[in-house]
């Protein structure tokens, strides 16, 4: 997995590719390229959501309360 993988962006990209296919305006050549790209993105996204956990960072308080 890439270090700075941007899930939201990749997910959106996948949706755009799906939409492009649905619109029916793709040529076969473009379609094959986008298909390949879509599969790669889907694989990355799946890997991301299946394996990544949330990271918790606790803020150190700056102030001293009474």
């Amino acid at each position: 997995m890439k270090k700075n993988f941007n899930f939201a962006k990749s997910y959106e990209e996948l949706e755009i590719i799906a939409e492009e296919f649905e619109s029916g305006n793709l040529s076969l050549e473009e379609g094959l390229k986008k298909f390949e790209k879509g599969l790669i993105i889907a694989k990355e996204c799946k890997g991301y959501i299946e394996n990544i956990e949330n990271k918790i960072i606790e803020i150190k308080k700056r102030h001293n309360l009474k």
Partner: protein
Amino acid sequence: MQFKIFTPTEYAVFINEGLHDYAAVVEGEVSEYRINQGKWIFFKIKDENSVLDCFSTTFQLKSPLEDGMKVRLYGIPKIYPKSGKFSLSVQWAEASGEGSLKRAFELMKAELEKEGIFSLSRKREIPKFPKRIGIIASKESAAYKDFLKVLSQRFGGMELYLYNVAVQGENSIIEIVEAFKYFNDSKDKLNLDMIILTRGGGSLEDLKSFNSKEVAYAVFSSSVPVVCGVGHEQDISLADYAADIRASTPSNAAELISQQRSDILMHMNNEVYKIESNLNRLVMSSNSDIERFTRLLDGFISGQINAFANLQSRLFNGLKNFEEILIMQRSRIDVFLRLLNSLNPREVLKRGYSIVKFNGRIILSIRNIKKKDTVNISLSDGDINAQVL
């Protein structure tokens, strides 16, 4: 014994200095509550037997009061030099007892509503896949743990910044306000998508800080969108109303801000399926296009071949005609040749005729010749010269 002599003013100052030590929390019922010039607050606090005058300012008293409300207030006793009147200078006051708390809650809600703090038009949206989230909660609370548990069951890859605060008690309001300030100040550094303010359920007394003007303002003024999730379904705090998104419980807050992994996986599989089936259709339609083109090309080529064959046969027929014409012409030439041959003078000579020439000219009459002339006689196989006798 020597007494110190005071002027009334000096004595008032002296007394007030001493009275400072008698500052106290007094609990009683509010009466004759009124605000002058939108700034000065006058009321009395009483029980069955006693009444105390109270004075404060709208700056100090954040929570609205009204007659009959049971309150707890912190006041510094004071004598006003001009009137000599004794009153409590009230630093803070809060409703006490469920009934009064409820009333105070309603009053505050109405006030904030009027100020537009709860206005729906200013509610902001949160991103579908938040990356960085600020959390204001008590680290040990069940609310925080529930929130984390539900969130990590649903989705991952988020950075959660916890600002641990007391969600009730003396310092709660200050800490929560401070937490909002911290997250807003570090907005660019942390790049937060939202702030979650959460705590468990409780009585109005427990939820006091979440119903305070300070926290409601902090939520309202946050430049980062705020999601508020408090307690049980039925607990709605003023912070909830001020938030961009109101969750019914801490777990619900986690649900509202995140996507379920399985939903996303399903959606993604669906998208991939969509892409695949559309690509298949594209390939199939390209195939049928190719077939169509092939058919067209095939038709074109066979048309060309036919046209060529046609041309060839026309050429062949033409040649044949030409040949026939040629043969015919040739036989006609033969006839002419024969005719010509038969007319050839030499052929006539063969039959015994001869041609007589004098000086190269054919002699056609005896008048053109005389004795002793040498003439030339042409026979079929040669010439002879002879002399006329």
